[in-house]
């Protein structure tokens, strides 16, 4: 069918020469540009710097692995493994602690005052500087700390227990306290969003409480669990405060080491170290991506939110 309709043609403008894309694509590309300039570029700069060499402030633009060699020859590999191991262990412990807690807070706790107080207790620590939060534990776990005083006073031990501070135990402990809220919050939110009707329907159809937990609550809380994992594990790898205040020189970790290297103006090795941290984080994301394959990937995790 042909129609004789003469359409008005606008004179050609800039838009006519740009690819015809919907507005969303343009705003997305604008956002991407900001993200690239503000976040990716500095990260790329770190990677570039990590391949340079120099002395003091004189930098020589010959690409080299020298900084990485230095890092690994001074026990960097061990430190790297330790950092990932500690962050991984603590993240799993956090998940085991936070999930039942979030479940109780979202579904079990009917008393609004208790709820409010719990929320406050979860957020108040953030008003303190991270160092102040952590340093308190020294007076609890130190050689003359509260725990040792009690142990000595009651005669349970004859000499102060030393592994309570500046040890892996202390670092784990410090991390668990500091990163509990980051695991609880996302899980609490996603569990709160689960309609009580679903839980009732599950029971009504014959499911025990355990089956309801496994078949209904866990899959529907998955977005929160994944978010909690990411927001706990990755910042923990980047945390310099806990390791240096609770571990001292006995437990060296990546982020604390980057900071002390910057402190002594060793920017090049610091950059190499930062690049390693970056690589681990990326590797973790890839790992997560594969781990979520069975439930349909990240899209599958969030598909449950479509109602």
């Amino acid at each position, binding site marked *: 069918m042909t129609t004789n309709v003469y359409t008005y043609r606008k004179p050609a403008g800039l838009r006519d020469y740009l690819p015809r894309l919907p507005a969303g694509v343009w705003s997305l590309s604008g956002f991407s540009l900001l993200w690239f300039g503000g976040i990716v570029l500095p990260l790329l700069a770190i990677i570039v710097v990590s391949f340079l060499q120099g002395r003091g402030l004189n930098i020589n633009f010959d690409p080299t692995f020298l900084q990485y060699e230095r890092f690994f020859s001074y026990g960097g590999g061990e430190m790297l493994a330790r950092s990932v191991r500690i962050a991984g262990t603590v993240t799993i412990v956090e998940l085991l602690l936070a999930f039942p807690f979030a479940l109780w807070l979202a579904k079990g706790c009917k008393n609004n005052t208790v709820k409010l107080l719990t929320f406050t207790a979860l957020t108040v620590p953030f008003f303190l500087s991270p160092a102040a939060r952590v340093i308190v534990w020294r007076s609890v776990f130190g050689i003359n700390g509260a725990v040792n005083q009690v142990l000595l006073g009651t005669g349970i031990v004859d000499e102060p227990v030393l592994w309570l501070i500046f040890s892996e135990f202390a670092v784990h402990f410090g991390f668990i306290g500091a990163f509990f809220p980051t695991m609880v919050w996302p899980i609490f939110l996603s569990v709160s969003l689960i309609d009580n009707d679903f839980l009732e329907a599950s029971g009504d*159809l014959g499911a025990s409480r355990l089956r309801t937990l496994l078949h209904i609550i866990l899959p529907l809380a998955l977005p929160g669990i994944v978010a909690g994992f990411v927001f706990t594990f990755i910042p923990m790898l980047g945390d310099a405060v806990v390791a240096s205040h609770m571990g001292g020189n006995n437990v060296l970790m990546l982020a604390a080491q980057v900071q002390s290297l910057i402190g002594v103006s060793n920017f090049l090795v610091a950059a190499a170290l930062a690049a390693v941290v970056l690589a681990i984080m990326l590797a973790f994301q890839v790992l997560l991506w594969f781990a979520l394959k069975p439930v349909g990937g990240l899209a599958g995790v969030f598909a449950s939110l479509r109602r």
Partner: protein
Amino acid sequence: MTSDNNIAPGAPSPGRSEVLSVEHATHQFGSLVAVDDVSITAGRGEFLTLLGESGSGKTTLLRLIAGLERPTKIGGISIEGQDVAALPASRRNCTTVFQHYALFPHMSVGQNIEYGLRVRGISQSERRERAIEALNLVRLPDKYDRRVHQLSGGERQRISLARALVTRPAILLLDEPLGALDEKLRVDMQVELLDLHKKLGITFIYVTHSQEEALTMSDRIILMRSGNIVQEGPPTDLFDRPRNRFVADFMGVENLIEGALEAVSGEHASVRVGEHMLSGMWSGGDVPAAGTKVCVAVRAERVRLSNAAATNGQEDGVNRLPCQSGATIYKGKYVDRTLDCDIGPVKARIWDRDADIADLASLWWRTDECAVTKIEGS
């Protein structure tokens, strides 16, 4: 429309073995008494409706039966003769169709339907077979692999029915299942639910606030008000013989005329209203003393118009009042006319245009087509 068997519906249903019995159930939310010492029974294969306005306790009663709510006080509750008072919802042989369907969003339609079978440890192949059977039953045979969010409201309703039926419960509990559907779909689903009920022979306990739904579908209706049962019986009982003024009003009786009871003889009661003597079928139960305030309940469609003047003498089998024409409301299928009488306005519904009268002098209705009932109590 009742089920097509010969068993007369009514409580306790004769000829039907008892499948549910709730004795003296009380449930409180804080200081609010939602269900106040209520006892009900349901027979096998019965379509029982819990009717009432919101806050009447009908949904709470349903949830007590399902086990989703623990009663504050209970004499006993049994399903198929088994005492279930101490059992959680998961171990009661009844399932619920939720008002907002409660279909699991992370599962496909098939997985949703199979859920009850899966938690009972039934094999994958049998699960699938029975799920497809259930899908056929609700006439959505090709939706097995769909995601829940791809379904329309009516389809979700049916899937949630299929999910509740697939475990073959003794009782199906339906909590305002048609409340979220639009008018036309609601009427279609009413018919479909009735078909299903007939086909399966399962006891349906149906919660609704719509008297029209209750009348269309039920074998028996239990009308509730603030936690108590006001009246129970077959639809015709509630429709034509309301126990009290509240029931009459709830069942949509337009004209509720108050007067003093003169006498009750046999089934007929006569009532003095102003200067007039009206008579109708006594439906208030125990007869109160003469002079007690009672209510004459007459439906607008029973009121007929006439150009004959009202005589002072009583006519046999007819109540007649002199009247003048009042406001007319056009309703499409019919016309509602409000007529001014000396005892107050009376509403008449005129379906047949030819029956409308211009030089109107009186209105009348048959005495056996109106009920005389109590103001309060049951």
